[in-house]
Every structure is written in structure tokens, then in C-alpha cells.
């Protein structure tokens, strides 16, 4: 409503001066009041406008808070996962520490053996290197064990073979000397050899005993993989015994017998040819 239009003077036809004056005073006051009201209304309008803005901001803040509230459970759950991760990290750290302690304890003894560690090696590489060295050492140990077992076996065979070859030489010498000679016991003859013949008989019997024992031990060593050689040696040693101590052996009337001498020599040669195969030693 426009107050100025309502108090227009032209609308009042006749009034005395006092009334006019009071009326003017009244109008003036009303006008002042109107002005004040107007000013206050303007002020209220301003306040209302500001209030609206503030309300809007407040509303936006409330909305923001509401939205944050909605996200809160999600954040909370995320917070829980973070705690789990933290726990896992702790457990992992403990496990690493335990491994480290174990490794340090075990490697103390190995450090004494492993005198050189490559520069710039890391823990894992050192562990890998030590493990590799241990496996290699074990492999070398097993290889050496098998190798030297075989070497010992071969050398044992060669040892008995060489002994048998030596004994064969002694035996052949005694046996051929005996069988090629005639026993001359008649004291009326100058070249009596009864003592020499008796000595050869004793040597043949005793040498044969040692020879047979060593050959039987040798045959026991080779019998598994070379049974044919073993059987042949035992057959030949039997034949050698029958031949060299049979017939007129230890007889007073023994004559020279080149045939038996030759057969003994041939038997000894056959035995030697078998034994020579086994006589090579490994150093």
C-alpha cells in the first residue's frame, strides 16, 4: 500500500487550521513512521534474504553431512580391512623375523665352511649358493663312495691276481724241475739227487696249497660277474694238482717225464692268461 497517496491534501475539502495543523502533524508523524517502517521492512527484507542464503547453506551442509553419514559405514568397513592388513603385515613381519633368526642360526656353522661369499650377494642368493654347494658336496661324496668301492674291488682282484701269478711262477719252476728230472737214489752213482727231489716234492705240495687258497679267494671275488673265468680257474687248478702230484710223484723210481712237464707248463700258462686280465690295478 502507498501511504503518500492516502494522505494527499486535496482529498480534504475543509478543515480548520488547528485541525489542519494537527492533521499535518499527524501526517508528518505517519510519514515518519511510514519511512521508519519502510526502512525496517527493507531491513527485514535484507535480513530475510540473508537468512534464506544462510538457510540454503545450512541445508547444503546438512545434505553434505547426511551424505557423509551414508558413506560412514563404507569407510568404517574400509577401516576394518586396513586393520586386517595391519595384522597381516605384523604376522608377516614376525614370520620374516623368525626365518631370519633360523637362517642366522643355521648359517653360523655353514659360514665356517663357506669361506668365500660373492660380493654383493643377497640373503636369498647366499642361501641358494649354500644349498647348491651342499647338494654338490653330497653328489661328490656319493660319487666318491661308489668310485672308491669299485676301485677297491678292482684293486683287490688285481692284488689276488698278482699274488696268484707270482705263486704260479714258483709252482711252475718247482713242478717242471721235478718232472723233467729223474730221481737218482742209488748211492753207487755219483749224481744222486734224492735230497733235491725230496725238496721239490715238499715245495710242490706246500706251494700248491698256497696257490690254491689264493686262487679260490680270487674266484670268490670274480665269481658273480665272471663265473666262466672262475669255473675255468677252479677246473685248471684241479687238473694241475692231479698232474703235478699224480703218477710217480714221490716215487723212488720216478723217471724224467717231459710230457707231464710240458702239460704242467701249458696249464700254468692257461691260468696266467686268465689272471693277467685282472692284474691291472687302479691308482
Amino acid at each position, binding site marked *: 500500500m502507498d501511504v503518500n497517496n492516502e494522505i494527499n491534501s486535496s482529498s480534504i475539502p475543509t478543515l480548520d487550521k488547528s485541525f489542519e495543523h494537527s492533521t499535518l502533524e499527524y501526517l508528518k508523524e505517519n510519514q515518519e513512521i511510514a519511512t521508519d517502517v519502510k526502512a525496517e521492512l527493507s531491513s527485514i527484507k535484507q535480513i530475510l534474504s540473508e537468512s534464506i542464503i544462510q538457510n540454503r547453506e545450512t541445508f547444503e551442509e546438512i545434505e553434505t553431512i547426511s551424505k557423509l553419514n551414508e558413506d560412514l559405514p563404507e569407510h568404517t568397513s574400509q577401516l576394518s580391512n586396513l586393520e586386517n592388513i595391519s595384522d597381516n603385515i605384523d604376522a608377516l613381519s614376525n614370520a620374516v623375523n623368525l626365518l631370519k633368526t633360523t637362517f642366522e642360526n643355521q648359517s653360523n656353522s655353514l659360514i665356517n665352511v663357506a669361506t668365500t661369499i660373492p660380493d654383493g650377494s643377497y640373503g636369498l642368493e647366499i642361501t641358494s649358493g649354500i644349498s647348491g654347494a651342499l647338494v654338490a658336496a653330497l653328489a661328490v661324496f656319493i660319487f666318491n663312495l661308489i668310485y672308491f668301492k669299485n676301485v677297491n674291488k678292482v684293486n683287490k682282484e688285481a692284488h689276488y691276481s698278482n699274488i696268484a701269478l707270482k705263486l704260479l711262477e714258483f709252482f711252475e719252476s718247482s713242478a717242471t724241475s721235478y718232472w723233467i728230472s729223474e730221481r737218482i737214489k742209488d748211492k753207487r752213482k755219483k749224481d744222486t739227487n734224492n735230497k733235491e727231489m725230496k725238496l721239490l716234492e715238499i715245495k710242490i705240495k*706246500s706251494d*700248491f*696249497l698256497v696257490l690254491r687258497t689264493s686262487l679260490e679267494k680270487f674266484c670268490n671275488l670274480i665269481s658273480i660277474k665272471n663265473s666262466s673265468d672262475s669255473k675255468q680257474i677252479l677246473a685248471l687248478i684241479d687238473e694241475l694238482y692231479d698232474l703235478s*702230484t*699224480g*703218477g710217480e710223484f*714221490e716215487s723212488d723210481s720216478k723217471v724224467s717225464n717231459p710230457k707231464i712237464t710240458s702239460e704242467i707248463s701249458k696249464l700254468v700258462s692257461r691260468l696266467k692268461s686268465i689272471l693277467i686280465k685282472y692284474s691291472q690295478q687302479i691308482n
Partner: protein
Amino acid sequence: MKILYIGKQFSDDPAGRYYTDGDGSGEEFREEVLRPLLKLNKPLTINIDENVEGYGSSFLVEAFGGLIKHGYFESDYINRVLNLDFNDSDFEFYARKIKQYIKEAIYNSEQYESTKETAINEGKFKGSIDKSFLEDFK
């Protein structure tokens, strides 16, 4: 059961085939020890390693193989009653050879002709071995 010790009771050096080869021959052992004892039809154990260094095959063939060769006993009978005893494993060889000679001998394949008289006449056999131990086996 009594045991016959060759090395202690017969000779510590049993050697030779015939009487003519001297005392302690295979023929003497067969004729004067083995044959009488085996005739008793009792089990006989002979120790072959005590006090003996070894044997020549001439002695063993004549002593043991001769029992069959001259028709005194069959090999089955000898195998049944004769037992060879030894402690030294080296003498296993001689035991095996004795069994071989008994097995290989052909029964009654040769007429026996003693060489004892010739040996005595030639002074080669002196009869120095005392065989009174045989009485203990009867």
C-alpha cells in the same frame, strides 16, 4: 665213535703210491689200515688235517681209489660208511678230491699185485709204522 687220525696214527708225511716208494705210501695205508677197518662194516671217520701238511694225488688215488679199482669195496658202500673229518678249511680240497677219486674209480678194473715184498727186498719198505691202533677200532 673212534676217529682215525692219518697224521698222528699212520704218518705225518703220507707220501708215495706203492710200498716201493717207502714207508707211509698209499698202498700201505689202503692195504694195512683202510681195508681192515672198512671190512668191519662199521662207520669210519678219518681225520685228514691233524699233523699233516698236505697230500699228493698219487697217495690219495692209490689209497682211496684203489679200494674200488682192486674190487675190495663198491663206491656206494664206501660213501655210506666213510666220513672225512677236518678242521682246517684248506683240507676241504683234499676231502673233495678223495670223494672224486672214489667216484671215478672203476670197480674191480685192475688186479692187485702187491709191491711189498719187492720193497722189502730192495730195502725201500721198512715197516716202521706201528699199526696197533687198529685194535682200538675192533
